[in-house]
């Protein structure tokens, strides 16, 4: 059966490249799927939006060049919430993606297509992007591992921008070991991205193998006290595994975490309202017909091309930046960002890593939250803080609740992706959650 036939009822992919492996290197023999906000020269690249329906990028993202050079076979582009704005992939202009574990449920978002493709065995590895949880939350909902690297670790040249002080590209795979291999290839300095960290990367696979004995793992009991009992049990069972691996558990406190979500939704939407100003129908993408002057051409183009959630976030961001509200909302959110960074400086003075759930619940049903934007935003409560602080964070399979996979999330100090991979890898040596497969999944065909 062809890849497109195998994908038919999931709809994880938006485009199949038919491309063979072009290089040879550490990813030889492996198949990789790319989120559709990564530009590949002459491949349709829509970011899930009608406004980019016929867009063919004239250049290729740095991460994609590196994957090709490493011998990976690039299968195509995966579905996503429009411009990465969403937590369910329901905001794609090209239809919903289904969760391989339960076809009535969402795969999470915004990298839902990438997570579903890995979970269903349609590819070995995938790239996603994470602005407020968009790698980790779908990884959790689909029972796989996903890593948001430290802000600046991976070049964003060729990534379609959403929130520029938050966005990072990162790997999704069943195991931490595979995430380490993929991260090694895509990470490191890039002269084409001035926000990219200038120092060379450590050997993540070597760091991954170091024993966990003696590591101090922090957690905040207040964060989980209101969780549904099954979710809390899964989280506590995860902590227990780390205890058995020789880590010490330390109770710490993050007094400002409850403010991370409102701060995130102000900063992300403010940045989005600015980033998405470029879609004006002049240089590329959709242009509305029949407008008499340039100003009405632009507003008509944007009104036709953007979906409801993108419009909602542009509106919120424009409001937060507008005269009379800037100090009360946007500036206040930036100050909250400072307090959150200070909270984590304090925490990482006491511990080596911090554990928290990835989501408050397993995957929800398709349509369940689509009528209530705020309820959808609240599902990101545990993930946005890593983006606001720039810190690396990883979600690995952490058990099953009501037959659905749930994630266990780890955060570490800046540039310590190796520690996250190390912990997740040893967790996976001791547990089998990452070996479970949804019905009908098979190994990827090469």
């Amino acid at each position, binding site marked *: 059966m062809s890849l497109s036939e195998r994908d038919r009822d999931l709809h994880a992919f938006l485009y199949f490249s038919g491309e063979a492996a072009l290089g040879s290197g550490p990813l030889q023999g492996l198949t990789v799927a790319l989120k559709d906000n990564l530009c590949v020269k002459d491949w349709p690249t829509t970011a899930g939006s009608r406004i980019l329906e*016929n*867009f*063919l990028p*004239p*250049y290729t993202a740095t991460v994609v060049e590196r994957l090709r050079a490493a011998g990976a076979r690039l299968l195509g582009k995966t579905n996503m919430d429009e411009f990465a704005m969403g937590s369910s992939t329901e905001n794609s202009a090209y239809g919903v993606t289904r969760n391989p574990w339960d076809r009535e449920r969402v795969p999470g978002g915004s990298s839902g297509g990438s997570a579903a493709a890995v979970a269903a065995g349609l590819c070995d590895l995938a790239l996603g992007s994470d602005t407020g949880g968009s790698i980790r939350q779908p990884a959790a909902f689909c029972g796989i591992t996903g890593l948001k690297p430290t802000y*600046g670790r991976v070049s964003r040249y060729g990534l379609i921008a959403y929130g520029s*002080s938050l966005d990072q590209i990162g790997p999704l795979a069943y195991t931490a070991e595979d995430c380490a291999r993929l991260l090694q290839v895509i990470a490191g300095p890039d*002269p084409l991205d*001035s*926000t*990219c960290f*200038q120092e060379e990367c450590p050997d993540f696979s070597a760091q991954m193998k170091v024993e966990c004995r003696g590591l101090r793992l922090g957690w905040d009991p207040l964060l989980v006290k209101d969780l549904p009992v099954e979710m809390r049990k899964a989280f506590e069972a995860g902590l227990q595994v780390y205890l058995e691996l020789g880590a010490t558990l330390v109770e710490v406190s993050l007094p*400002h975490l*409850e*403010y991370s979500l*409102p*701060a995130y*939704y*102000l900063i992300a939407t403010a940045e989005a*309202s600015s980033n998405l*100003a470029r879609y004006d*129908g*002049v*240089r*590329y*993408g*959709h*242009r509305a017909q029949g*407008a008499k*002057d*340039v100003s009405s*051409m*632009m*507003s*008509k183009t*944007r*009104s036709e091309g*953007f979906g409801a959630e993108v*419009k909602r976030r*542009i*509106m*919120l961001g*424009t*409001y937060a930046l*507008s005269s009379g509200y800037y100090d*009360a909302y946007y*500036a*206040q959110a*930036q*100050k*909250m*960002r*400072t*307090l959150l*960074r200070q909270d984590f400086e304090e925490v990482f003075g006491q511990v080596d890593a911090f554990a928290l759930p990835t989501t408050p619940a397993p995957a929800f049903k398709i349509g369940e939250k689509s009528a209530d*934007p*705020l309820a959808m935003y609240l599902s990101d409560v545990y993930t946005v803080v890593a983006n606001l*602080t*720039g810190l690396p964070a990883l979600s690995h399979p952490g058990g099953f609740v009501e037959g659905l996979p749930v994630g266990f999330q780890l955060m570490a100090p*800046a540039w310590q992706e190796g520690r996250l991979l190390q912990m997740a890898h040893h967790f996976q040596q001791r547990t089998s959650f990452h070996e479970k497969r949804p019905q009908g999944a098979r190994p990827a065909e090469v």
Partner: protein
Amino acid sequence: MSELTTEQVAHVAKLARLDLSETETEGFRKDLSSIVGYIERLRQVDTSQVPATLGVQPHSNVLREDVARASLGADGVLANAPHRESNAFQIPRILEEA
């Protein structure tokens, strides 16, 4: 609860270059009121002595050597143009004829 008015929503839509129908305006008025109501909780925290964080990277203004290198060229840049005239993007009229 911070209810937004229809006029406020219309003003923001104009700033954002979005044409909204009446139904959309009312929908966004309700949504934004509820989201802004939730966001209001940020103001509970005294931040008068807290500096703002604009970005999280440890470096700024990273520059590379100013060396000429190959670029897209006019055809590459214009390949996705919705309307093109010779080497330019064509747009509707900006100025009225005299």
